[in-house]
């Protein structure tokens, strides 16, 4: 799956989880850019992405992502292994 395809699917997960149709993610999007993206919703996003991509993130990843691009890096890495 290309980075763009992953981004598109993550975008859908964000819209669905945060219940906000207007979310448009790019690789530089950070938590501070989206009002609903607090630490509690971050947990739901992690859970939804793990289920969707059938992967398991490490705690170190969950706590260190600086933006959406780094989330895609994590997913890419796991999907390629």
């Amino acid at each position, binding site marked *: 799956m290309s980075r763009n395809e992953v981004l598109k699917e993550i975008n859908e997960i964000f819209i669905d*989880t945060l219940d906000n149709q207007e979310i448009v993610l790019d690789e530089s999007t950070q938590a501070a850019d989206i*009002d*609903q993206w*607090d630490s*509690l919703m971050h947990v*739901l996003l992690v859970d939804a992405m793990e289920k969707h991509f059938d992967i398991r993130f*490490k705690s*170190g990843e969950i*706590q260190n992502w600086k933006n959406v691009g780094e989330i895609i890096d994590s997913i890419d890495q796991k999907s390629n292994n």
Partner: protein
Amino acid sequence: MNLKFTDKKITGILTVFPEKEIKFDDEIDNYEFTRQQSMKLKLVMGFNKRRVVKEGTAISDLCVFGLNHLFEKNLLKKEDIDALILVTQSPDHFMPSTSHIIHGKLGLKQDIYCSDINQGCAGYSYGLNHAFMLLEQEEINKVVVLNADILSIKVSNKDRSSGPLTGDGATITIVEKNQDGNTIYGSVKSDGSGASALIIPAGGFKQPSNEETGKLVKDKAGNYKALDHIDMKGDEVFNFVQREVPPMIDNLLEKAGTTKEDIDYFMFHQPNKFMVKQLANAMGVPNEKMPNNLVENFGNSASVTIPALMSFNLGEKLKDESYKICLCGFGNGLSWSSLVLDIGHLDFCETIDYNN
């Protein structure tokens, strides 16, 4: 810091939960969650139901109720209590210490060491460490460690990160000398530079409560909190726990000359279901060995969660069997602490309800 104790033993655990139960389903409207979010939060975080005190109930009420239960059942004698240690961050008053209030309500002997310890979610092992140290004294043979908090009072019911999780309760742990030659290994760490990650900003002597500190203010995520309420920076706390706890346990087990495989149960503090699962995952410990079911049944009651988790999951089994248990608490301060010890063949291990 590594700690080591010999010839000490836990001989009983009693958990007291207030009877009043709040169901997440009944308070969903406070938090502006969608139905889908609510259902997911139940599964992932353990938002479900929690026990809270009714207005007017103080921690001394929960502790006195539990201790009287033990006296009545002949499981503990008043005159045998040589020390009373209370771990709490919701004392009845700033002064005197609540352990003295409890001492007075129960009419305990004057020849006693009575003290409060101000610790939050790392507080169970702090109380035990103090008990172990006190038991080095010739005249101290039995220590009662009380863990009690009613922090639901200090949580905004419009704060979705703390509100649906915070519960109240108390536990009584009896610690005595024994001659089995067992060694207990412990570890404690502190980082005061993270003090603001989990704090009640107002209501102390630095900033007493007033009309201003009681005003609800909306944050970016849509939570309403006042300065009188618990303010938790969820991401900072999560990061601290996931960063510091796994290496602390590795070091502790190495010092104790044991391995994760040899530990029967990892009884860890219960901030929420997700965090406990992540810790188990990061440490390579199967979920069956690290129970995570306290929050969904009773809420997070600070230093009460570890002994409550043991009495809820093992209960009577702890009277007949003995297990090698690794305990770990982590929370405000920042503070994190752990112990490896054998727990079992207890005189009692049960959970009772307090009805006020």
